[in-house]
């Protein structure tokens, strides 16, 4: 027997993925080149402008830098702002994601 909704007005709880796996939105995927990424090259916390400017906050400012591709919408701001030009937005092949 399915539990009924006990709310009498619309009250939401926080959770990841309200709009689903927004990684599906992308038509280009960010790829970080560790040979160029300043944090990777220096092998310590550094730069992190990609973390700073990601609207979604899905960049992990670690060594190496990691992007959560399940939710990355592919805006490309990280690639645009990276001072080392370490991030490339790789276009998906037609018909594939």
């Amino acid at each position: 027997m399915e539990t009924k909704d006990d709310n009498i007005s619309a009250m939401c709880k926080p959770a990841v993925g309200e709009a689903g796996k927004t990684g599906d939105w992308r038509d280009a995927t960010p790829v970080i080149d560790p040979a160029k990424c300043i944090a990777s090259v220096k092998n310590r916390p550094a730069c992190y402008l990609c973390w700073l400017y990601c609207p979604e906050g899905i960049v992990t400012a670690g060594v190496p830098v990691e992007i959560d591709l399940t939710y990355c919408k592919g805006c490309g701001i990280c690639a645009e702002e990276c001072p080392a030009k370490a991030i490339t937005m790789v276009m998906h092949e037609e018909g594939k994601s």
Partner: protein
Amino acid sequence: MSDVQILTGNQAAAHAVKLCKVQVISAYPITPSTPVTEAISQWVERGELKAEYIRVESEHSVMTVCISASTVGARVFTSTSSHGLLYMHEQLHWAAGSRLPIVLACVNRGVGAPWSIFNDQQDSIAQRDTGWIQIYCRDNQEIIDSLIQAYRIAEQVYCPVMVCYDGFILSHTMMPVDIPDADQVCRFLPPYKPHTILSPEDPRNINPVIFPWQRRDAEGVLRDGYMDLRWKLQHALEGSRDVIVETCRAYAEEFGRDHGGMLWTYRANDAEVLLASMGSLATEATVAVDLLREQGIRAGLVGIRVYRPFPRREVREAFGKVPAIVVFEKDISYGYEGALCADIKASLYGTGIQTPVHHFIAGLGGRDVKAGELAEAVRSSLAAIASGNSEKQTWLNCVTE
């Protein structure tokens, strides 16, 4: 303990707010409701009522302040009339959909265009679809008693309540009012327990966009779509009938005054014609009933006290056996007929009751309505009914074609 004072309707309303220990009052002036919040501001500024008093910049904001303050758990109040009520119309819908126990005193006044500052009930009756409970008071005693009951009803069913009383006729007229004892009122009103959670301890997003369909949450529970939530409001309003009746009964037991629950009757038992009305017009109609009785017509009156939820069951019972019904009301649903009349007729549908129902649109924009005119109107209706006219709309004492 009896504390009878000579009060205007507005003063009676203000006293109710003080007794109910309302915590947030949002106020905007509009004739003839202004004295209510003026009286409250005196008490607040002198420290006799501990409350936040927000002098907002419009009636739309009046209701908005009520909504958000009630959401975080404060008992709230406001009063308004006419265009003030109309200006907050959007927020009335929002308050009901939010399921908040807001109490509003509507001091009935006609609406423009053109401007009228005088009494009719178009303002509140035009809000009948918003999801608010509506109570119509027949005298100043009922104003103070109904406002106190309103908090208990609202906070139990989580629906907002509008207590309506006629502008100038009641709001500015002085009558003896027995002011209930403050401690007794405290005991009569349990503290408000909000169902809404708006707190850093448990972050929620309240009243966002909702899809038409049901949708699972992150824990897998199937949650409502828009229509399901809206059904809950309708269901709560229908169920509030029992709470309204019980509250009235409990109030009568505690304070000794019974205002009748959903509706009240006057000399109705053996009636050959029943008048129907709301508010101070119903009080005037009791005088008309007496006049008719003196003239040999066995008239009676049904005073509708609660207009929403509409007292379908009580109306069917009250009008079940009478051969003629004459409705008097201070409103019109333009393009159709008086709203009260239409609702009465609709509630009789399907019961087999085929009673002729005549109605009179009376007193719009404050045009005076005298008991003698009501009695004359009933006599003319009875004559028309006798000659086979079972349904008629007449504008009382008005220039028509």
